[in-house]
């Protein structure tokens, strides 16, 4: 992704790129075995130490006060090698918009706390996190609210990690709540507003992840086609292979441009930045699915095997397309925001 002449972004570009190559790429296959293999705790701790987690947190809260461009750059570089780590950085890695499909706990106010009960499916990172934000519905109210719950709470039962299409190391669990204590976040019934505000910003981050995966897929395919032979010459010298590579390269270049532009719009609070963020993410997420499929295709049989990174990118790209809600509904919401 384009860091431009910004010194801080350039430094971040270098740091995140080196981290991904050194700490993620060599262990990709091993880390992807989770939950049937160990969790990538060492890499996660190192990422924490380098302060990737705090990139967009304001300095007053102990973060480094960077904007969306910085977060997107980190995600882009990391997802080139392993998108599971990328997902862990997202502030709210949620795959369902509670306004669209109800996946809510029932909340009841008791004195100055709330008590939550019911089942909430697919809460990402809850297997390892200390706290979770849970959407819940207060009886008798329309809309939903967000509650912060403490995961060691005796009223919360966690399922084993849910095996999913991609992002294996960044897994989700189903939560069963029974009179679990919850702290209201913000105001009652305002969950949908908070979700949409968060989604406006985080779409671009999701787009950066997809773009990073695309770039990783293209790089691996490009290198492979220079070495693999067919009919006595390297397959990169067959024009159909070049055409597929060209499609991938053009898509990657466009994705990088879109993300850079969207980040600029978000960080400068440009008029209509929300649409810019969402449009970029919707387009890139969809393109990434085709690019990663082509990435496997160019490697042929070996691209389908775990020995290479392509099959994981294919899964991760489709997985990420579902971030922040059902893909077609994100389009509907986009046009609805224009209709008013």
């Amino acid at each position, binding site marked *: 992704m384009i860091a431009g002449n910004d010194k801080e972004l350039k430094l971040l570009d270098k740091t995140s790129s080196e981290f991904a190559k050194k700490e993620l790429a060599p262990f990709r296959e091993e880390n992807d075995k989770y939950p*049937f293999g160990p969790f990538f705790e060492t890499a996660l701790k190192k990422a924490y130490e380098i302060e990737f987690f705090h990139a967009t947190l304001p300095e007053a809260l102990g973060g480094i006060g960077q904007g969306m461009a910085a977060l997107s750059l980190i995600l882009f570089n990391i997802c080139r090698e392993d998108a599971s780590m990328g997902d862990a950085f997202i502030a709210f890695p949620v*795959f*369902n918009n509670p*306004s*669209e*499909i*109800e*996946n809510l706990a029932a909340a009841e106010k008791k004195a100055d706390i709330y008590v939550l009960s019911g089942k909430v*499916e*697919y809460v990402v990172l809850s297997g390892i996190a200390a706290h979770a934000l849970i959407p819940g519905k207060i009886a008798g109210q329309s809309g939903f609210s967000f509650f912060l719950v403490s995961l060691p709470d005796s009223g919360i039962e966690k399922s084993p990690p*849910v*095996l*999913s*299409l*991609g992002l294996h190391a960044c897994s989700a669990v189903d939560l069963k709540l029974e009179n679990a204590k919850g702290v209201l976040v913000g105001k009652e019934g305002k969950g949908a507003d908070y979700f949409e505000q968060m989604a406006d910003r985080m779409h671009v981050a999701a787009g950066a992840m997809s773009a990073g995966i695309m770039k990783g897929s293209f790089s691996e395919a490009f290198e492979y086609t220079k070495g693999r*032979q*067919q*009919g*006595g*010459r390297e397959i990169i010298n*067959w*024009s*159909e*292979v070049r055409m*597929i590579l060209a499609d991938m390269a053009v898509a990657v270049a466009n994705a990088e441009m879109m993300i850079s532009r969207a980040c600029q719009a978000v960080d400068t609070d440009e008029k209509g930045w929300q649409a810019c963020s969402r449009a970029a993410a919707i387009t890139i997420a969809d393109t990434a*699915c085709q690019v990663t*499929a082509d990435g*496997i*295709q160019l490697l*042929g*049989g070996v*691209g*389908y*095997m*775990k*020995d290479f990174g392509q*099959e994981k990118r*294919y*899964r991760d790209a*489709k*997985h990420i*397309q*579902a971030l922040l*809600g*059902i*893909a*077609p*509904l994100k389009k*509907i919401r986009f046009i609805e925001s224009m209709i008013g």
Partner: protein
Amino acid sequence: MISRKEIKSLINMSPKFDDMVNSLQSAPKLPKAMVKETQKVIAIARKFNREVVRPSVLGLDLKMHENPNYLPWEFVEKANEWGFYTMWIPKMFGGQGYNQPSMAYFAEEIASECLAMANLIGVHYLGMASLSATFNTRMINKIAREVAAGEKNQTPCLISLAITEPGAGTDVEEVDLLDKGNITCHAEKVPGGYKVNGTKVFISNGHLSAWHIVIAYSDLKKPSENTVTFAVKTGAQGFSFGRKENKMGQKGCPASELIFKDCFIPDENVCLTPREMENFKRGNKASAMQMIHYVVSVTRAGVGAFGAGAARGAYEKALKFASETKVNGKLLINHEWAQCMLAEMYKNIALARLSYVETNYANGIYGFYKNLQSKPAYYYNKVVPSKWFDRFSSMMDKPFMTNLFRKRQMDGQTDEEINRTSGWGSLSKFAATDMGIKNCRMALDLMGQAGLRHDRGVEKIYRDAKLLQIYEGTNQLNRLNLFNCLIAKDHPQAVVFDE
């Protein structure tokens, strides 16, 4: 209004009527009983899905995630018990003799539930088809009857096909590329047989098969004119299994490495030699390509049926989700945009199915299915009891039977028929498998978070279906084969695989 001469001339203009419409020409010639028999086959597949596949499909995939080296013998034993490994072997070779095109409908049914399990059955017939294409009736009779015996004594006897090499995938499926390719599996002629050295990779069902039909080359400098097809049995000296690939999907069906180290193949297990191929009408090289066309015309239609199955499985899961999930307070199935997506998916299934059905109509009049699909042969095979065929089984061991079949099937097939069947085989392969992927994507789009979960099944189909675009010739190779067979023939200036 129009003379007969004019009609003949106009329907032979490009696109030629014969290339356009296989069904209209084939259907009236088909034995009527094939319809009921095909219905029975579909019903059996659905029963098998209900009783065997559906209850175990996700469990097997999960097990394979946990232990990629696991071999699903319990499923193979079930399929053997249900008679699926002899169902489409002709009675004259000890099988049950169901009409062979019905296998594609069967494949779609099983694939709609699990592509790996469909492959555990289907790949056996890829091996059988390759063996059959040598028309060595003695070897066909020997191996097919072992399969039948394995069914009776509940010891599955599967057949695999070993052709892909570590350095050559596409090259081994196209003789124009073969001589320039990195071919290493050498079958050296020695007294009494061949000594084989080399490695074959990505062999579906390898670790589970008792017999392996292997394509090797007696001269690596000119493999296109020195193709040796032989059968090797698991356990033979000098033959061993190497690694089992850790795949993204179709995990239940192993992709095996086969290693040959000074493996002696006696003449009696050699199905077709370069010398024998010299006697074919087209000569050695062109006959090697004809054999490939002959097999892939049916097996690629089979992969097309897998593609239709994948498209259907994804659609069925999305439809169920849409029927029971409320989105914005209204069932998803009642959102107009979702209805259009489901209609698009339905269309994809129908087109994928039509592609393999139409291909098999071509195979019925011009190719692999031609002989057994003629009314006299079909009814003879259907009505006469197996025991009768068994009494005359030794006839198949006579060299004249091999010669008769080779003359009729290989030399009797015209170039136009080869092009038509192979071109349509490729069309079905890449069209239907692309539809499979398309529907998986749409299903995952519709289902969002729910679709990502392993326990909902659709993410597995997305992983499984990708392999369909790679094996049996990549979809790119198949596009080129279609171009070669159905387009380039009318354009003499067109050259394929030589840019």
